[in-house]
């Protein structure tokens, strides 16, 4: 097999055939364990909540996804800042990968929130601060992905995305404040968003295991997405050496069409 000199402590093996590695497999395994625990406890073992009833089982999905989304957006923001400073492909890829995963989790969060609303309020949507804030933030990051999708010079595209990543994260607290004031805060903060300290033992266990599972899945996805993005960049680089050769060949005669 191709024995490369950059073999680290990991196994001497042929190049991977995908974005997986031993690290992601271990990580994925842990995530799977916590997911199973979350399903068993969240859906079956833990009792209904005193106030929320069975809808607490939606919260078991809602909290991990929103936390994963915020984690991803924070990674995007940090990477955006680092990109403008260091100008390396690593930070660009990390930021854009995280943004995509953040949008995924955030969209799921909003759907879960609406389903929770259907049970609790009888309607899918209420102009409740957290739902509203989330919807605005989601669209902001959809804009990020829209810009990302526009074909451009890598440096140009990365710069645009980094700027949006920074601007968007700065807006998050402002949107929160504005929407909270706008609705006069009549929805208690503990219901959607943070964990209620009054929860019982198995409920808390279900909540924490699903939260850990959510964050592990988020990181696992991020690593895979980053590697897929890296491979996509290498694939488009492939033509470069050839393009340089072809470009130099243009200088041979018979191609000139002088005006």
């Amino acid at each position, binding site marked *: 097999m*191709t024995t*490369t000199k*950059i073999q*680290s402590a990991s196994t001497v093996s*042929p*190049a*991977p*055939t*995908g*974005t*997986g*590695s031993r*690290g992601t497999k271990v990580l994925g395994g842990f995530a799977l364990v916590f997911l199973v625990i979350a*399903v068993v406890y969240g*859906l079956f073992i833990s009792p209904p909540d005193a106030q929320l*009833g*069975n*809808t607490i*089982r*939606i919260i078991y*999905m*809602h909290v991990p*996804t929103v936390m994963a989304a915020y984690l991803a957006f924070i990674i995007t923001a940090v990477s955006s800042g680092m990109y403008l400073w260091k100008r390396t492909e690593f930070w660009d890829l990390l930021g854009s990968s995280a943004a995509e*995963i953040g949008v*995924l*989790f955030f*969209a*799921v969060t909003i*759907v*879960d929130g609406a*389903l*929770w609303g*259907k*049970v609790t309020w009888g309607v899918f949507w209420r102009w409740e601060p957290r739902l509203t804030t989330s919807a605005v933030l989601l669209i902001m990051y959809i804009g990020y992905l829209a810009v990302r999708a526009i074909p451009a010079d890598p440096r140009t595209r990365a710069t645009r995305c980094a700027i949006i990543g920074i601007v968007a994260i700065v807006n998050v607290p402002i949107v929160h404040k504005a929407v909270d004031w706008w609705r006069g805060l009549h929805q208690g903060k503990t219901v959607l968003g943070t964990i209620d300290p009054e929860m019982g033992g198995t409920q808390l266990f279900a909540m924490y295991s699903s939260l850990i599972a959510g964050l592990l*899945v988020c990181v*696992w*996805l991020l690593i*895979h*997405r980053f*590697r*897929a993005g*890296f*491979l*996509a960049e*290498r*694939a488009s680089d*492939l033509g470069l050496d050839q393009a340089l050769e072809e470009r130099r060949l243009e200088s041979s005669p018979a191609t000139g069409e002088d005006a």
Partner: protein
Amino acid sequence: MNSSNLTETLCIVGAWLVTFGAVGAYGAAVILRGRRLSKIVPPEQRRWM
């Protein structure tokens, strides 16, 4: 009463299905994309840490 119980069950199951479905589908898409790109990119450029 019965119908509200049904709504509740549907919404709870729906929330879990949406979450697992969306994240699972995305994960599968990323991994398949990675496999496809790996066939194009030469092996020395795809060593992971």
